[in-house]
């Protein structure tokens, strides 16, 4: 290749627009991790014994691992050692206990959410979004609870679920991601501080989109939230999470776990718009987003769909996966991952086919700009009993400029000869020619880039709920600002 076209120059970082810090009183654990920390967290949450025991088992397993040597090393990412004793594992805003209404919420927190544009306000509830907002480690407000309760849907913070629905939690926690699963999932199992819990009963179609908004505010804290969604027989639920964090020079660790369980004929749609602080244009600071997300299609004809738009984080390590256990179950993964400046992403999915006639679809769109490194890593595994299984994989990469990288690692393991597998892949580059064509029609360079990128991602955006699709498009445009000079 020759020199880059004159119009594609090295990147200038855009302003991260969600980088403000909220000044509130926090209630936090001293730095470091030992059994005492686990007991502190559990006591703060007034947890029943089973929960504390589970945490301690996870902690002891984690402590038995050779610390940073035990971190997964196979991903195509580079980062310095993480000092797990220099992190505070619990941080909560100090506030009055038991809010009766949103009006009682700390006004500073309210303003933060307003800046983020989260629809906590009464009038915005009309938009049909129920929000469970997680600020640092504690869920501060849950809207729409009453309306959901009418339908029999449980949507609350994880802490509340442990108190009020211990049997459900006990039954399903760790059933998809066991505490021994991987280093970060084990850490999460020991120290998880809050998160969301959803249970949709038999035959109920959840009357609205459910949404959780995560935000890391405090310095030198990690966020370890845990989400558990159970859709009982014939139930349907659509869930969306969005994430931001303030600008800080040091890296912050985010090690979450999400477990989904779909029983017979149930459907779960899980959408993520992830915009954690990506670090500055030289790669300083930013979130390490090391997340374990997995769904189990436990029942026959059940269906789990993951849709993710990943624009933030310094490093993303994340593979939302499906275990297709029930016959005729369906797993789907639609992903847009963007890396700009010095961001690194190693993301993809695992589709594990156990049941007969199980089907999976994977559509991955990676966009690399600046010095960004974008890796798709996917495993499609057809086990012996999965007669008639089918997979379709489409994996496309788009490069902007010539200092970035796109990498693809597809793994396919087939143990049943009746399986049908399709894999398509492409790599393209936003060319000077494409940009010139759009600019000759009057579009500014940035609008032209944005148009090309949005066209590239269309197949994935189509899977997002309408209003989030619009938000995702805007986010991509903002994240790419200045990527073409």
């Amino acid at each position, binding site marked *: 290749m020759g020199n880059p*076209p*004159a*119009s594609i120059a090295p990147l200038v970082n855009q302003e991260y627009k969600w980088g403000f810090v909220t000044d509130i009183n926090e209630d936090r654990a001293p730095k470091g991790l030992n059994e005492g920390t686990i007991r502190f967290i559990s006591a703060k949450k007034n947890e029943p014994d089973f929960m504390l025991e589970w945490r301690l088992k996870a902690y002891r397993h984690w402590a038995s691992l050779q610390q940073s040597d035990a971190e997964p090393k196979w991903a195509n990412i580079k980062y310095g050692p993480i000092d797990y004793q220099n992190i505070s594992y619990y941080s909560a805003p100090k506030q009055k206990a038991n809010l009766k209404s949103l009006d009682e919420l700390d006004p500073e927190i309210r303003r933060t959410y307003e800046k983020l544009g989260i629809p906590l306000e009464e009038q915005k509830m009309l938009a049909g979004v129920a929000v469970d907002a997680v600020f640092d480690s504690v869920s501060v407000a849950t809207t729409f609870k009453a309306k959901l309760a009418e339908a029999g849907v449980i949507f609350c913070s994880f802490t509340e679920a442990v108190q009020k629905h211990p049997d459900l939690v006990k039954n399903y926690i760790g059933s998809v991601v066991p505490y021994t699963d991987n280093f970060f999932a084990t850490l999460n199992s020991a120290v998880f501080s809050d998160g969301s819990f959803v249970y949709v009963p038999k035959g109920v179609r959840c009357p609205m989109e459910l949404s959780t908004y995560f935000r890391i505010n405090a310095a030198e804290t990690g966020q370890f939230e845990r989400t558990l969604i159970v859709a009982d027989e014939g139930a349907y639920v659509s869930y969306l999470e969005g994430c931001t964090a303030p600008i800080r020079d040091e890296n912050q660790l985010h090690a979450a776990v999400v477990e989904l369980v779909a029983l017979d004929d149930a459907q779960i749609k899980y959408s993520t718009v992830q915009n954690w602080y990506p670090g500055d244009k030289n790669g300083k600071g930013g979130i390490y987003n090391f997340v374990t997300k997995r769904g189990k299609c436990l029942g026959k004809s059940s269906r789990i769909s993951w849709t993710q738009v990943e624009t933030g984080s310094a490093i993303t390590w994340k593979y939302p996966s499906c275990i297709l256990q029930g016959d005729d179950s369906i797993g789907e993964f639609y992903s847009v991952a963007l890396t700009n400046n010095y961001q690194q992403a190693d993301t993809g999915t695992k589709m594990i086919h156990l049941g007969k006639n199980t089907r999976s679809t994977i559509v991955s769109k990676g966009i690399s700009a600046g010095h960004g490194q974008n890796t798709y890593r996917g495993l499609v595994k057809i086990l012996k009993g999965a007669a008639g299984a089918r997979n379709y994989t489409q994996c496309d990469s788009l490069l902007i400029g010539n200092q970035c990288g796109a990498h693809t690692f597809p793994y396919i393991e087939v143990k049943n000869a009746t399986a049908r597998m399709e894999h398509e892949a492409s790599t393209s580059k936003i060319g*000077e*020619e*494409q940009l*010139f*064509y*759009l*600019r*000759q*029609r*009057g*579009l*500014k*360079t940035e*609008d032209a880039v944005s*148009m*090309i990128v*949005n*066209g*590239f*991602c*269309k*197949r994935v955006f189509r899977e997002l709920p309408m209003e989030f699709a619009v938000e995702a498009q805007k986010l991509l445009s903002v994240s790419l600002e200045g990527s073409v000079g």
Partner: protein
Amino acid sequence: MSLLEIKDLKVRVDGREILKGINLEINTGEVHSIMGPNGSGKSTLAQVLARRETYEVTGGEVLFKGKNLLELKAEDAACEGLFLAFQYPVEIPGISNAYFLRSALNAIRKYRGEDEMNAMDFLPLMREKLKLLDMNETLMNRSVNESFSGGEKKRNEILQMAVLQPKLAILDETDSGLDIDALRVVAQGVNAMRSPDRAILVVTHYQRLLNYIVPDRVHVLVEGRFMRSGGPELALELEEKGYATAETGRERRV
């Protein structure tokens, strides 16, 4: 009045001089044609006028509507009313033709301080122009130029021109790859746009397009220089005798 004025324009590509001193004046209401053999610099001239930055202008001056065109960005030149119908239109996967065209129209309207046009108002305008070019509306819901036939791509260029209503339209080899029926339709579309306050510059290798779009002036470009200029009859002469005569013609005149 003079819409476009090119004075002694010199252009390099990869260190090689392609245009070696071009002079040309086009007034509103006129249709000019630039003819020449392959590699003579026709497309280079078209792209330089549209402000493609991969070309290095080493000398000369270009005024468009009295403004220094060589200082404008490509998008600003477009918003000022300069349109290039591409020889090889580019595909934009995932973006519908209708959305793209409305975005372009609105970018230009915004530049001029006009209100943006919503989808409802845009639809009748688009339909009218589709009819003019005998194009099927389903093309508007498909991704820009993606899996369009050669003829569909060229018609789509003229459709864009008809919607955007430029002051100066440059047609770069619009006839290449068109069968005779498509050529007629495209020419009809271009002729419908002839107007006293617009100029059209037709760049072509072959004379046959000029049977349908009859130019006021024909210029013959050979090796980066205009060798001859004349009326529409010059095109016919070239068709008959080839480009070699253009050079001998010049020698006779000198």
